[in-house]
């Protein structure tokens, strides 16, 4: 193996800047997509626990559709097909009108996909609460909305912190798929450095270390949160 080691390439211009900006885009995509995933996923998950058969089947259908199509195919559907299905003016706006169309497409795609996984966690968290709590809440005269707001959701969100952390780390890693539609996130930038300099080993090592570091930080932070939020006398209930 003859390979010209040159770790210096990582800190020379413009490559150092590429890595930093790549990390920035990765975090931005992951954070924005997580907002969608968390909100939408909670709504879908809650829908699947209600007594309304229509809401339940909409929730179930959503989860099946988004879990059974590869994420990359979903990315292409959002990027190439979705604008075509809209009325023409809207389609043009999605393609060209909004700033950073690739970025927002990736955010929506990752958000809606992860929402289906978050929904399953939220549903599992709610279903794991003993029936007595719900009955007690109804017995003291709370409306269904209040039962969720004051009893079921606070308990379930506290118990599903570990699987939700994994889902967030999933979105963080999956944000690398954004490179297929042209978002220059961390993986794309290091791949580009490899192509420009042939220092693939150094470039990919940098990306690997950054991914591992962020994962480690998130896991450490969430372990603290989990401890703080733990419900006394309960072991974690979230689904795998």
């Amino acid at each position, binding site marked *: *193996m003859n*390979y010209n080691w040159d770790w210096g390439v990582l800190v020379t211009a413009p490559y150092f800047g590429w890595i930093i900006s790549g990390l920035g885009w990765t975090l931005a995509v992951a954070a924005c997509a997580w907002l969608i995933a968390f909100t939408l996923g909670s709504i879908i998950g809650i829908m699947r626990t209600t007594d309304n058969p229509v809401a339940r089947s909409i929730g179930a259908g959503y989860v*099946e*559709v988004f*879990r*059974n*199509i*590869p*994420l*990359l*195919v*979903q990315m*292409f*559907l959002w990027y*190439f*097909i979705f604008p*075509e*299905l809209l009325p023409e003016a809207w389609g043009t706006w999605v393609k060209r009108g909004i700033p950073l169309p690739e970025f927002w497409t990736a955010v929506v795609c990752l958000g809606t996909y992860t929402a289906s996984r978050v929904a399953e966690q939220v549903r599992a968290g709610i279903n794991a609460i003993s029936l007595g709590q719900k009955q007690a809440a109804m017995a003291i005269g709370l409306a269904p909305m209040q039962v969720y707001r004051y009893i079921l959701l606070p308990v379930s969100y506290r118990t599903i912190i570990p699987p939700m952390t994994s889902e967030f*780390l999933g979105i963080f*890693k*999956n*944000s*690398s*798929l954004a*490179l*297929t539609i042209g978002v220059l996130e961390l*993986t794309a930038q*290091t*791949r580009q450095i*490899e192509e420009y300099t042939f220092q*693939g*080993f150094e470039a*990919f090592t940098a*990306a*690997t270390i950054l*991914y*591992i570091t962020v*994962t*480690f930080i998130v896991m450490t932070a969430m372990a603290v949160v989990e401890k703080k939020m733990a419900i006394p006398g309960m072991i974690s209930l979230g689904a*795998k």
Partner: protein
Amino acid sequence: MFSDFDFDVVINAIPFLWEGMQLTFLLTFLAITGGLFLGVLLALSRLSHIKVLSFAAGSYVNFFRSMPLILVIFWFYFLVPFIVGRPVGGFYSVLVAFTLFEAAYYCEIMRAGIQSVRISQVQAGQAIGLSYSQNMRYIVLPQAFRNMTPILLTQAVILFQDTSLVYVVGLHDFLVNAEIVATRENRLIELFSTVAVVYFVLCLSFSLSIRKLQKRFSI
């Protein structure tokens, strides 16, 4: 918008798409086989009493689980020809990447499966004088496999979907072949919606049969 949906383009592309699908199936099958084999070794190492072994296996799993699959694919696309010393073609590089990556996930599934076997079963095995390997072979693993089979199969569905990521190195799998036709014929809607429907039907029917199996199979 669907009024000019051109079915002929899709029908004419079927042989070419099938060629791609064969690569998808082959890659899935080989990566599952390799991943399972390596995964068993990793899981046994992780549960081993030898500290070095369990630490090494644990680090392997954490390492691969904190990396995006695309980065792993790029890594091995770059590394494998280097290690072998000559170009080997994308397929083998990607196969190595998928096998090593999946092994980490299979390891965790199997570890959970093995740990779900009650300790009294192991003790009973020891009491009747089974050695460690006999105990594993006749008592623990048969029960563990029944517990983890549904999850292993679900992971196989996920792997089947993930093989579409070979797109990033341009291997001609199902999705890439569809994209080639789509660009050539300028028929993106037809081809991409076909791909989505095919994947959806395959994955959904497989997931549903796993759920059925799970009901029959669980201890």
